[in-house]
Every structure is written in structure tokens, then in C-alpha cells.
């Protein structure tokens, strides 16, 4: 149905994709996997008209095609759900959903019908935002669902998902996978990119592996184990994903929060994280984890009693949090994390400017040095140091952001979705890194929508539900079913189910 032949893409002198050949059949789920920066998103953009190949051909149903706009690709039946959110924040959910193809009645836009359809489509995906809400006001995960709903609004021949699940939690992921299987049943072709190899394993009929812009090959799905896939991606053997939990005894309380309330989002939350401990925060989308921590670090109005190393502190702004040694890594790297139109070095040093200004003027060499070592230690894949942050691949943006926060040398690191969009090899690296941090006497809080990840790296997990802490699991009790139960059911019920634990 779709055939790409010898596709290549160069940005200036840099080749990011060379000679990739791929075909997708109707009713097939075809997965694309590869490391961060391997060229997956670039390939998808070429296929769907968002970028133009430097070389190579595209065939749809046997006839050669050239798309100069995404719109043309959509007319040919190809639609892409972006890895990065592409919505107009100032417009409502329904307006975004129907942007450029509004329904009309008698020549007038028919808002009522559009709102109704929007609500239905979103509900199918498990998203319950109001179609009238401004996209600016809805949570990141919901934005992703809106994007997906938008792509599914019209019938297409080929739907491309570029890491659709990176920002979703279990519940929504399940629903999305169901929907993808339904597309397949309708004889629609699906291209599916994900770093969550379990999903790939469940879905893919065939999978194509990219490495450093080149094809490794196309393989039949389900025959490969996750470890096989990972090794094809990185081209060598991988060790275990999760680092061994240090047998270090948990140290003195490092950060303790009493009765934190973030109006409208979180209420009466208390917890303590200790030196050398990785504390997890689990919950469904909308549980209020992000807002809780944004409140604690002074990014939104909140009341909280905060003690750092036993000393009460009062944090009124992110600056004060950073200076006190609390680093917060946002889940929304595109809108809140990085200056997309700015070079890498200024992005890296933005939170820690002080360090690069020994005197009045900036020490450029020190800054370049910091970039070099960040690229090295976080394995940021970039072929050309002159690019802007927005030109990095999604996963590499995430690594740059991590490097940026850690440059402030925090003693408590709060990471909201640490491995969002990161490939499996680098995930392992980031996990090891987190361990290393706590090993060095820091404390780390991880908010994540991936339960396995939390279970894999945390010493203890708090589960939030509707703005409150609904329970705590540790040690043997850290299982997916326990967490899921706490995330969704009333505390009493879950306590009963957990046998009174917590």
C-alpha cells in the first residue's frame, strides 16, 4: 500500500537518513524501532509530507507521489501523529481537533456538532477534557490524546504513530492499543514507533530497525524478544535494564513535605524522602503529581511545610528551590523545558548561569566544556553542534534537559517522567545515573507513568489518586497490580486488597 524506496534526508552537510526502503501493507501494523536520533521521526515526516526527502521515492498504492504539504499526504490517506505535541494552545480542544476541516452547516461552522463528536472521540480514548477547554489549560497526556483523536477523525489508509504512548499511563495505553488493533481490523495500515518494546512486541506484524540513519533490516514481528530488538537497535549486547538496588541503608530525612496543598490539584500531602533513596510517585493521568511538585518548588501557588535536611525552608520561586538544592525536571520539555530555537549550550546552562560567569562576562570556554561533557555523559546524539535544541531528536532533547537540571547540582532531584521518549539503551543509562546520584548521597523523586520503571528503580512508591496520596508500596509489595489498585480505587478498598499494608 505504501512503499518508500531509497529515502534519504540531509540537513545541510549532515545526513540523518540514508537509503531507507520500507513498505507497509494494508491491515498491517509495522513498527519502527531504533535508538534516539536513529532517524525514525525524520522518516515519518518524509512519508507524511512534513519534510521533503533529499532523495528517494514514495509510492502509494503503486503510484509515485510527492507531498509538498502534510495536507496533500492526508488527502492521499496518510496521517501522522507527532511525537511532539503540535496543537494551537490558544484554541479550544474541539477547535484544534477540527482545525482546517471544520464541519459546517449551511456554510456556518457547526460548533455544537463538532463539540459532540470531539467529546465522543476523546471519550473513546479515555480522555475526558471538555471540548471547550483551551488546550493551554489541559494536561500534557490529554494533549497527546487530543492529537491522536485528531488523526483518527477522518478515515485514512495509513496512520503513523510516533511514540504515542510516551506520555500516557497504563489505562490510556491499553485503550490506544485496542484502537490500533481496531484500525488493523479495518484494513488500515499502521506505522508504529515506540521505545516501549513490550508494546511493539504485542502489536507489530513486522518491524523495521533503524540505526544511525540506516536500515538494519525488516523482521517479522512477535518472533523477536525485547532483548533481541534492543540489540538490533544498538548493535551490541545489552546488560540488564535496571541497575541493582544498592544495599545502602536509607539515610537521614533529606526533604520532607508536610500538608502540601495545591489549590485545585492536590490536597494535604505529606511525605519524606531520605538521603540515598529513590522515591516514586505513581498515579493515573490527572492524579495531580505534576502540579503537586510544581507547587512545592514554587512554580504555582501552593501551601506546604517544607524541610530540607531538617531545616524548614520557604520556597517562593523556582530560583529559591534551585538555590536550596532542589531540582525539578518538567514533564513538558517542549513548552517548559527547552528553548527550541536556541543552541544547545545556552539551553544547557540556563538554570545554572551563575557557574559560567566567574566574573562579569561569561566564560565561553567553560560553557563549551560543559556541553562537551554533557554530550559525553548523557550520550546526547547530535551530529552537528550548531543545531538548535528543537532540531534534536525527541529522546536527545530529554537527555539535554536532564543534563540541564543536573548542572545546578541539586541535592534533591525531582524528575517528572525521566525517560519519556528515551530508547531502551539510554533508559538503562539514566536508571544507572539515578542510582549513582543517590549513591552519592542525594535523594531522588521520580514521577512516572511507567509502572515497571518505578518498580525497577524505586525504593518506595507513593500512589496518588485525585490529588491525594492513596497509599504507599515498598519492597515485595511493589507490583503493578498493587499500584494500579491504589491508583484507581478508594483507599479503604485498596488497603483491604493489599492486606492492610501501607
Amino acid at each position, binding site marked *: 500500500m505504501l512503499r518508500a524506496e531509497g529515502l534519504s534526508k540531509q540537513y545541510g552537510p549532515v545526513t540523518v537518513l540514508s537509503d531507507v526502503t520500507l513498505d507497509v501493507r494494508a491491515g498491517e501494523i509495522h513498527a519502527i524501532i531504533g535508538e534516539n536520533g536513529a532517524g525514525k521521526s525524520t522518516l515519518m515526516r518524509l512519508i507524511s509530507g512534513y519534510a521533503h526527502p533529499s532523495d528517494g521515492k514514495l509510492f502509494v498504492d503503486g503510484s509515485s507521489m510527492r507531498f509538498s504539504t502534510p495536507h496533500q499526504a492526508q488527502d492521499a490517506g496518510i496521517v501522522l501523529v507527532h511525537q511532539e505535541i503540535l496543537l494551537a494552545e*490558544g484554541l479550544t480542544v474541539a477547535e484544534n481537533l477540527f*482545525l482546517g476541516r471544520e464541519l459546517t452547516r449551511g456554510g456556518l*461552522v457547526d460548533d455544537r456538532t463538532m463539540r459532540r463528536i470531539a467529546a465522543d472521540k476523546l471519550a473513546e480514548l479515555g480522555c*475526558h477534557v471538555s471540548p471547550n*477547554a483551551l488546550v493551554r489549560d489541559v494536561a500534557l497526556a490529554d494533549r497527546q490524546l487530543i492529537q491522536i483523536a485528531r488523526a483518527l477523525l477522518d478515515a485514512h489508509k495509513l496512520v503513523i504513530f510516533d511514540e504515542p504512548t510516551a506520555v500516557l499511563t497504563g489505562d490510556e495505553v491499553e*485503550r490506544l492499543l485496542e484502537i490500533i488493533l481496531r484500525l488493523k481490523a479495518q484494513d488500515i495500515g499502521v506505522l508504529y514507533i515506540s521505545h516501549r518494546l513490550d508494546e511493539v512486541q504485542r502489536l507489530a506484524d513486522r518491524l523495521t530497525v533503524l540505526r544511525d540513519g540506516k536500515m538494519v533490516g525488516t523482521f517479522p514481528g512477535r518472533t523477536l524478544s525485547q532483548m533481541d530488538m534492543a540489540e538490533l537497535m544498538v548493535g551490541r549486547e545489552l546488560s540488564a535494564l535496571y541497575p541493582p538496588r544498592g544495599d545502602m541503608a536509607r539515610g537521614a530525612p533529606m526533604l520532607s513535605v508536610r500538608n502540601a496543598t495545591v489549590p485545585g490539584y492536590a490536597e494535604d500531602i505529606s511525605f519524606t524522602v531520605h538521603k540515598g533513596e529513590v522515591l516514586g510517585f505513581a498515579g493515573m*493521568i490527572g492524579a495531580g503529581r505534576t502540579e503537586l511538585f510544581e507547587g512545592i518548588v514554587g512554580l504555582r501557588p501552593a501551601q506546604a511545610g517544607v524541610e530540607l535536611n531538617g531545616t524548614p525552608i520557604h520556597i517562593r520561586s523556582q530560583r529559591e528551590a534551585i538555590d536550596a538544592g532542589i531540582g525539578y525536571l518538567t514533564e513538558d520539555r517542549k513548552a517548559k523545558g527547552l528553548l527550541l530555537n536556541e543552541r544547545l549550550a545556552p539551553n544547557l546552562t540556563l538554570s545554572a548561569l551563575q557557574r559560567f560567569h566567574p566574573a562579569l562576562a561569561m566564560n565561553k570556554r567553560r560553557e563549551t566544556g560543559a556541553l562537551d561533557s554533557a554530550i559525553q555523559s548523557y550520550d546526547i546524539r547530535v551530529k552537528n553542534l550548531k543545531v538548535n535544541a528543537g532540531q534534536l531528536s525527541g529522546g536527545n532533547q530529554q537527555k539535554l534537559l536532564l543534563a540541564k537540571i543536573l548542572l545546578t547540582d541539586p541535592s534533591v532531584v525531582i524528575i517528572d517522567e525521566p525517560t519519556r521518549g528515551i530508547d531502551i539503551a539510554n533508559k538503562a543509562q539514566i536508571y544507572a545515573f539515578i542510582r549513582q546520584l543517590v549513591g552519592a548521597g542525594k535523594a531522588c523523586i521520580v514521577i512516572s507513568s511507567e509502572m515497571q520503571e518505578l518498580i525497577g528503580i524505586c525504593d518506595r512508591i507513593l500512589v496518588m489518586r485525585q490529588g491525594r496520596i492513596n497509599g504507599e508500596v515498598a519492597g515485595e509489595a511493589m507490583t503493578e497490580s498493587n499500584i*494500579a*489498585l491504589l491508583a*484507581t480505587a478508594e483507599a479503604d478498598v485498596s488497603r483491604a486488597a493489599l492486606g492492610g499494608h501501607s
Partner: protein
Amino acid sequence: MSAVIQSAPPRRERDFAIGWADAGPFLALAALLVIGFLINPDFLSSTNLSNVITRSAFIAIIAVGATFVISSGGLDLSVGSMAAFITGVMIMFMNGMVPHLGTWSVPAGMAIALLAGIACGLVNGLIVTVGKIEPFIATLGTMGIFRALITYLSDGGTIPIDRSLREAYRPVYFGTVAGIPIPILISLAVAAIGSFILYKTKYGRKCAAVGANADVARYSGISIIKTRTIAYLIQGACVAIAAICYVPRLGAATPTTGLLWELQVITAVVIGGTALRGGKGHIWGTVAGAVILELIANLMVLSDFVSEYLVAAVQGVIIIIAMLIQRFSNSK
């Protein structure tokens, strides 16, 4: 993964909020009326209010067009001199047609004015979109051009409307229908059509989308060039309509006609709640903004305790306070 599937509780709706956010300029307007009454009870007399609102009609009409331009992410500094230029062209045409058409040259002149307005808008639109020049600069350039053209056409003097047309044309500004002055009716009609286009048609959606996020709009198959250019055309047409209402009031075009209107127009739009960086436009807010500006000026004339030298200062202070009221009323 987990087998537990349960839908999250529906999010709180925020439907009212939209209506409430729009109320800002109207609250500021109400506050101003109260203050005005306290300062001078004549302020609320129906003659005075009807005068003031009639006067605000030009700025309101032009500002409706500007709401489109600004909503789509543009800006137009040329509207004042464009108004002068259109007025000049229109009067010259009408005067020239008198021997042939008699008073029919009035409607003919109006048609020419509309054409001229749309042509001016097209020029602005193309320079901004096809020429890809920052709107501020592009329209600053055309502002100079239109201003020079009217100076040239009038030989530096005035272009008065032919005496024989005066009486026929007068009612367009001075007449009333059912007791309501015609310019008020026209500006209401323009605002109604404007809000219809902005809120009910596909074009309106495109406009807001282009202003809110040009990339997203482009990816959605919306032509940015077309959308922005049309916004400038609408702006041109609105300027022409304003000019048409304006001619009978002053009876002439001069090189100073419409001087600094652009600032008033943009101020009306912003006071009305439309953000200068683009996105959703607020037509009725814009109209309220235009009335607010004119009321402030009127208040300055009616109140006696401000030194003539300080009028501009008090006006500045009131504008800032009006914005604060609005800001305050919007932050829940």
C-alpha cells in the same frame, strides 16, 4: 500491564469562564460611566452619550477590521493614513462625477471608497505575507505612502466635498433611524458581521489558528498567506466604511485626516481583550474598547479640574487603570 481499567472522572468544565473572561472591557466601561456621572451628571445625558458613541463609530469600525488583522498575528499601522487617502480619493471621485451623476455620485463614491480600501488592504497584505516583512515595518512603510499620497492629491491643502452633495450626504453621519444615529447602526452592523465571520465561519477559525500558532495552522492545510491577506482586505474594507461615515462629518479630506488613528485603533483592540501576539479575537470587546477611549476623551472635556496641559497624562492614567480593572476582573 495493569488490567484495571477505569475511566478517570470527567474534568471540570470551564464553559462559563469564556463568557466571564470576555466581560473585562464591559466592566471597565461600566466603571467609567459611573465615574463620569460622579464627575459631571451631564455625562450620562442622552445627547452626550449619543454624541460620544457616534464619534467612537469610526474607530470602532476600523478596529473591527484590526481585530481580524491582530487575531491573525498581524498589525496595521497604516489605517489612519489609509483612511485619509481613501477619503481623498472618494471625494475627488464624487466631485468629478457630479456633472454626470448628480447626487448619485454619492453612492458611486462609496463604491469607489470600498474598492480603494480593499486595494490598500491588498497592498498591505501582500507586502506582509508574500514579502515576508514584519507587519510593523511593512505597514509603517505604507503609512508613510498613504499619507504622502493624500498630501499630494490635496496639494498640501484640503479636498472639500462639492457643496451640491453636502445635503444629500449629510444624513450618513447626522441622520438617525428610530432615534439611533446612523453611524452607530453602521458600526453595530459591522461588528455583527465581523463577529459572524470571526466566530461562525471557517475563515474565522483559520484566522485565529494562524494567529495562535502558524505552524500548526500550516500543517492543518491552512494557507497562512491567504488567511493573513484576507485579514488585511477586511481591514481595508472596514477603513473604507469608516471613511464613508466620516466624510459628511468633516466635509473634506486633508493631509491630517486620521492622524494617529492607528494608535487608537490598536488600543481599542487590546483594551477589548485581543492579545497583540495574535489568537482569539474579541470583536465586541473591541467595540467596547473604542467607546471607552472616546468616553475618556469626552470626560476630559466635560471635567473642569484638569489643567489643559495635563489632559494627556490623565488620559494615560485612565487607560492604564481601565486595563487594570479588566485584568483584575479576569483573574477570577
